[in-house]
């Protein structure tokens, strides 16, 4: 059926999940409706209390808000408050077994924020700082969204809407139901009940843990730099240490990360040398988890009067998931307000946005494959390191490899753009040159 179903004055929208995707959807749906002169109601139903410390209030994540998202939000007039930002990131420090180098931000300004999704790790005492997810949810509340605390446990399709029920007995019929439920398998089943063709995204296990080191130690050992590791360790595609106020967050991405892989990473020389020598890291670790990450987008993530967004639909491979949530949430809100809420409307106006993310991830997979090859080759890593060290002394527009690495680490640019830049003949020539001169110097010094 190719008919459009349009929202009208008085239409009611439910957003299940108040993570970034849910809050962005609510904010923009209300913003667009106001500009368009339409009076709609938006309820956000969220099961967690983001004002809690530890896992209860946390949507497990590295907590980096990317440069591209910060720029888009600033243009929208959304300025992250000081008490949500735990640190402004000024540079990336790349660590290899062969050495380390700092990659400076392309402009002399802080454009990347580190934050906590909830109040912070278990036992956090810094009560002046606020949760990122709570900030976004409050922002959509100020726009007019109603916040409902509860867990949706039932969905039922009727001829003119979808009925939702929560665990606490709340029940309401909606004209549109938006699933911004992250990677919650149980809630996915509720969506499969109203849309049997929905295939949830594919996931893999990652690892996050927090180190409570205190501000002084962090300033001395990490500064405002995010530390990234390209090490020859199995399963790990990317490891990072992210400074945040009194904490450092460790993130390991790759495939099926487990305890042994985490231990190998922590014991490796480049990682250990980032921390003070005399401390036992286990004594400084209040929180750790093994959350899932979206590695392949969902299929049929919409139907008449229902749509899934954010991690529940398509994301960006390994990076900037919050930025991808912003993109899919906004595309869904644009479609719902200006086009309609039928399967046909979403297919025509929302699906292309997910397709673009999915296509970009194919290139992303290739980039990470190349990175894995580099990770395993000491010769290439030496060449890469030499090249970046040299580039950092050059003018900013001549730092070809640094800018590629910057965008790969920060997740700020689409993988397709990054890939195109790696084909720059100067970059290739310099990498080959630096690899060979590294080899010659290496042989001579032997």
């Amino acid at each position, binding site marked *: 059926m190719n008919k459009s179903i349009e929202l009208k004055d008085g239409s009611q929208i439910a957003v299940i999940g108040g993570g970034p995707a849910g809050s962005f959807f609510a904010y923009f749906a209300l913003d667009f409706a106001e500009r368009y002169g339409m009076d709609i109601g938006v309820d956000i139903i969220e099961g967690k209390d983001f004002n809690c410390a530890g896992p209860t209030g946390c949507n497990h994540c590295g907590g980096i808000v990317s440069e591209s998202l910060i720029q888009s939000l*600033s*243009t929208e007039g959304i300025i992250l408050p000081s008490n949500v930002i735990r640190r402004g990131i000024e540079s990336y420090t790349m660590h290899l077994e062969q050495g380390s180098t700092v990659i400076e931000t392309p402009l*002399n*300004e802080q*454009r990347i924020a580190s934050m906590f999704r909830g109040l912070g790790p278990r036992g956090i005492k810094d009560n002046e700082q606020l949760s990122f997810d709570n900030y976004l949810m409050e922002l959509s509340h100020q726009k007019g969204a109603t916040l409902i605390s509860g867990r949706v446990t039932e969905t039922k399709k009727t001829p003119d809407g979808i009925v939702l029920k929560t665990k606490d007995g709340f029940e309401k019929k909606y004209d549109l139901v938006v699933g911004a439920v992250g990677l919650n398998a149980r809630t996915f089943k509720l969506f499969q009940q109203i849309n049997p063709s929905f295939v949830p995204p594919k996931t893999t296990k990652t690892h996050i843990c927090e180190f409570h080191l205190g501000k002084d130690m962090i300033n001395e050992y990490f500064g405002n730099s995010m530390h990234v590791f390209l090490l020859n360790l199995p399963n790990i595609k990317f490891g990072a240490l992210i400074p945040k106020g009194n904490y450092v967050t460790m993130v390991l991405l790759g495939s099926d990360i487990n305890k042994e892989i985490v231990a190998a990473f922590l014991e490796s020389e480049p990682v250990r040398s980032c921390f003070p020598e005399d401390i036992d890291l286990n004594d400084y670790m209040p929180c750790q988890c093994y959350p899932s990450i979206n590695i392949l987008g969902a299929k049929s993530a919409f139907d008449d009067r229902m749509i899934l967004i954010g991690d529940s639909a398509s994301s960006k491979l390994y990076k900037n998931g919050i930025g991808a949530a912003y993109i899919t949430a906004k595309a869904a809100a644009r479609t719902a307000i200006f086009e309609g809420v039928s399967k046909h409307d979403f297919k025509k106006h929302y699906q292309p946005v997910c397709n673009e993310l999915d296509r970009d991830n194919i290139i992303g997979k290739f980039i990470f494959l190349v990175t894995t090859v580099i990770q395993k080759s000491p010769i290439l890593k030496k060449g890469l390191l030499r090249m970046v060290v040299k580039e950092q002394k050059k003018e900013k527009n001549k730092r070809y490899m640094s800018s590629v690495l910057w965008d790969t680490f920060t997740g700020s640019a689409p993988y397709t753009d990054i890939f195109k830049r790696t084909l720059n003949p100067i970059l290739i020539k310099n990498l080959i040159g630096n690899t060979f001169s590294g080899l010659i110097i290496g042989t001579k010094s032997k």
Partner: protein
Amino acid sequence: MKSNKLGRLYQNGEEVIKQGEMGDCLYVIQEGVVEVIDESGEKEIKLAELGESEFFGEMGLFEKDVRSCTVRAKGDAKIMTIDKRNFYKTIQKDPSLAYRLLEKMSNRLRETNKKLRNKE
């Protein structure tokens, strides 16, 4: 300024953009206040004061011309640059990103008209 806000820190009185110089990026105030000044006459004329979340330099995005005013930090201010290329690439995909710019530019035109009418 002890805050964690992003952007670049400008000290009191420091110029962010200078009238007559070329420029092609947009600036968004993350914290603090800036003064917009016309330096074309003998005496400086303060045209406006802008605060958090407000932007300036938007003409540089749309025209290839010199900056029409000077903008200076009043007290310490943190300001973020939005690059022209990023801006165009993003609004190409999501034109609604320009709604707020259009709205504010329309507000500014209304203000200017009001000022002109008061002068007559």
